[in-house]
Every structure is written in C-alpha cells, then in structure tokens.
C-alpha cells in the first residue's frame, strides 16, 4: 500500500512564483502565453464542476461568449474601463448561470450535458439575431476606451492574474471544509449524501464558479482581439479544448489540467505549420490516453506514486 508522503505548501507557492516570474521576464510569445493562461483558468473551472461534482458540461462556451459580449457592451455603452468591465462580465454570467440552473437542475448525466449544450447554442443564435449587439456581424470595441501603448501588456497581465487567482482559489477551496465535500462527491455521490453533504448545493456552487471563470476568460480573450462575433465567441471549440485538456491530463485533480494544457499547446505548436496533422494527433491522444490511462496522465502518476504538487490531503498523525 502507498503511504502518502508528507507535503508542504512550499512547492506549489514557489512553483507558481517561479512560473509567473518566467512569464513576465523571459522573452516569450505573450499572445500565446495569454491564451495558455486563459485556457488554463477555464480548464480549472470546468474541472471543478465536472471532475469534482460529476456534472459533465458540454456548454461552457456559453459563458465564454457571454463574458465577451457583456464586456464589449459595457465598455461601448457605459464607458466603464475594460478592467472593471471584466467583473461585470463575470457577474452577469453568474446571474445567467443561476437562471440556466433553474432549467437544468433536474437533469443529470447525459441529459445535463445535452441540455446545457442546447442552451449554449441557443445563446449563439440569440446573439446572431440581436441587432443591439451587432447581430451576426459582431461588434468592435470602442477604440477610445484603450491606450494603445500599454494595451498588449494589460491584457497579458489580466490573463496572468485570472489564471493565478483561479489556480490559488481552487487550491484553497479544496483545502477547506468544502474541499472534503467536493472530493467525497467526486468519489461517490450517493455516499456523500449519506454522510451529510448537500450534494446539489455543492454542484450549484461549482457551476456558478466555473461559469464566472469562463466568462472572465472569454472577456479577456476577446478584449485582446478588439472584436467579437457570435460564431467565434460561442464556438463549441472552446468547450472541446477544455474537455480534451482535462480528460487527457486527469479529471478531478488540480495537477491534471496543467498537464493537459502542456499536451494540448505542445501538440498545437509542434504541428503549427502541418495543417490537419494537429487535429489527427489531437484525436489520437483523445482516444488513446483514456483507453490506456482511464484517470488521465496525472491519474496514473498519482496512483503509482502518491505524489501531489498541490497538496490537498489531510494526514493523521
């Protein structure tokens, strides 16, 4: 039997500081780094919902698009600074997510997955018809609202901030009392209810948190491109990417999505000039990894070694 090694908070905290410093100081491609950070935040949020509370959402691109549109409309109509408009985007996403929950709360398993997918596509159709938000033509950010000299840096730091707040926030959540409830639900939903855990309330909480994170990430991403249209912002490709990253990396752990991110962007950069080869290898990975490693790559590593980079275990003396 594996004995769990003692762990401290030194490794994750120093590790995150090192990564942040490298991102800021080294001459890396900041556009790519920004995208990596935003997708990492989305993947961690989605993993909280699916990996821990078992709700497999196929519709989180709804919140990416919603966040983008709320940011654009807030900046263009009220003149509020883009930074603060991200918060508005997250808040609106919370309200919409709550309304969606009212419709989806009785649906579980594949019914939930398909239900939220339908809602996400309905939102895309709605925004494509809605004249006030530019219908299918999309909208351009009011150029007066940004400062061209600092804009590139600003969106990069916003993405960095969101990724770190998400990463540390979910880490702290899993170390709290709620974390024990979330991990119990992950391992056995019916068993969790029998020891006094309010399963539905935890699922709602995870749903709202993941919606707000995806909305903030969508807002920052489309802020960086200064233009948003319904077919891009509500593209299910956002959801597929996150799904691939979390399943391949390892569902239900903090480490899994990080590994998945490395694999996804690694493959994409390797096959950047090779056309459809990227899609072929992505598909192969998506099929082979779950077959060989049902818990994803991190699931296998953790089962073999008991390692934790972000320690969430409570050890008894």
């Amino acid at each position, binding site marked *: 039997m594996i004995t769990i090694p003692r762990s401290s908070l030194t490794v994750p905290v120093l590790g995150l500081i090192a990564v942040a410093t490298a991102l800021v100081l080294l001459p890396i491609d900041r556009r790519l780094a920004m995208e990596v950070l935003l997708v990492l935040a989305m993947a961690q949020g989605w993993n909280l919902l699916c990996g821990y509370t078992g709700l497999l959402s196929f519709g989180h691109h709804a919140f990416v698009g919603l966040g983008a549109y709320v940011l654009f409309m807030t900046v263009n109509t009220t003149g509020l600074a883009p930074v603060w408009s991200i918060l508005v985007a997250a808040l609106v996403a919370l309200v919409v997510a709550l309304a969606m929950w009212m419709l989806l709360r009785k649906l579980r398993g594949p019914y939930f997955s398909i239900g939220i997918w339908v809602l996400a596509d309905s939102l895309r159709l709605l925004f494509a018809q809605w004249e006030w938000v530019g219908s299918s033509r999309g909208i351009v950010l009011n150029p007066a609202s940004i400062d061209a000299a600092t804009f590139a840096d600003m969106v990069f730091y916003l993405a960095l901030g969101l990724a770190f707040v998400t990463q540390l926030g979910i880490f702290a959540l899993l170390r709290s009392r709620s974390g*024990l409830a979330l991990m119990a639900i992950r*391992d*056995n939903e019916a*068993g969790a209810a*029998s*020891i*006094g855990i309010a399963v539905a309330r935890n699922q709602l909480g995870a749903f709202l948190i993941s919606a707000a994170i995806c909305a903030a990430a969508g807002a920052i991403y489309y802020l960086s491109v200064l233009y948003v249209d319904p077919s891009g912002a509500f593209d299910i490709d956002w959801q597929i990417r996150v799904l691939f990253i979390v399943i391949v990396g390892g569902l239900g752990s903090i480490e899994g999505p990080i590994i998945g991110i490395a694999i996804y962007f690694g493959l994409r950069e390797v096959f950047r000039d090779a056309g459809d080869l990227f899609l072929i290898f992505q598909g192969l990975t998506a099929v082979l990894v779950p077959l060989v490693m049902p818990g994803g790559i991190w699931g296998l590593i953790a089962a073999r070694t*008991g390692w934790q980079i972000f320690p969430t275990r*409570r050890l008894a003396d």
Partner: protein
Amino acid sequence: MVAVLDVADVSKRYGAKLVVDKVSLAVSTGECLGIIGPNGAGKTTLFNLLDGSAQSDSGTVTVAGQDISRWPQYRRARMGVGRAYQVPRPFTGLTVYENVLAGIVHSPAAGARPGQRALEVLERVGLADKRNVIAAQLPLLDRKRLELAKAVSVGSKVLLLDEVAGGLTEGEVLDLVEMVKQLKRDHAVLWIEHIAHALMAAADRILVLHFGAKLIEGAPQQVMAAAVVKEVYLGISVDDAAGA
C-alpha cells in the same frame, strides 16, 4: 425508555407495487433490531425511507422527537441517521482518515477537534493503523469496517446496517458481531442480515418483513422458531413443518 427512532405506518409504492406496507417500529439507544425477510421483501427500501434516500408516500419517521419524514438525506444524516450500505461506498480517492473526517466536519456535533474524533471513530472499528491508506486499496473486511466508521462519523444516534456481514469469512463475521455489539452501547441499531447466527448474536429483537409488511416482531429465539417465519422465510409450508 423513549425510543430514539420511532417509525409509524410508513409506506412506499413503486407503480402498482406496494414495496413497504405500513411498517411501524421503535428502537432505543443500546438496542439492536434485526430485520430479516425473503429477497424483495422491502428491507432495503425500508432503510431508504428511514435515511431519506427515498421519500415515503405516507407515515412518519421520528428521530429524537423530531419528525424528519420530509427531510432530504443529507439533513437526516446531520440529524444523526448513519447508514452502512450493503455494497460499501468508500470515497476511493481519499485516505481512510479523510473518509471519516468528511462526515465529522459536516456534522453539527463536530466539536472543536474533528481530527481527534476521526481517530477515535477509526479506533472503534479497528482501522486506526490504516488511517493514512487510500480507501481504494482496502480489502473487503476493511471496506466494511470503513463503511461502519462512515455511518458513525456523522455523530449518529441511529445506525442502519444493511448486510454488513455479507461476503465475509466466518472469523471476520465474528469480529463484525463484536463491533456491532460495541456500537450498540451508544446507538440505536437496525441490522438487515441474512447470516442468521450473526444476527442472533447481536439482536435484541427481530422483525420479519414479508411483501413489504411486518409479519412478526419479537425475541430472536421466539421469532426464528415461529412456524409462520419458517413458511415465508425458509420456504417450508406449515403443514410440512408440522408433519416432519
């Protein structure tokens, strides 16, 4: 003595089939009520109605004077209804200690030192030396012990044990009987079990369910000897039994 668990006329119907038919029972702390009956008699459904994993159509369930008939499962657990399932439901990715801790921290009776209490519970079921082992790696007897520990962890007043001796070896069954006797001291215990000698050793009374209804309830020896029990439970007709 006032009963901790008081069940009055609970019924449950699935479609045309009446699965639990006006069952009443009462159990006090320090007491173990054994429940037997043929397959499909409604034993597990009765437990579902008590712990709230299913809602009864009629009747009342009262724990420590509080009517909990309409409460959801997690509130009943917090109120003190602990359940050990027939097929254990461990949190496989968590350690043994965390499995028990999860129940304790969600109980209103958690106290200031939940970690300490978790170790005490593990001590009671004999799992203290495996506290930092991942639950997925436990052998069957230890999974059954952990299932008991989880049922106790919520600060239970009432323990519902559903065939916890199933699949164990003779020696392990005896260990389990000792554990149940020990838990009985500060809990009201209901125990569904097919292994008759285990139940006889721990139960103070036995209740026989048949087609969802209470057939007979009384002292273990008396119930097991009753002709009507032999007929429904062992499949021997009263005439055959009399002729033999």
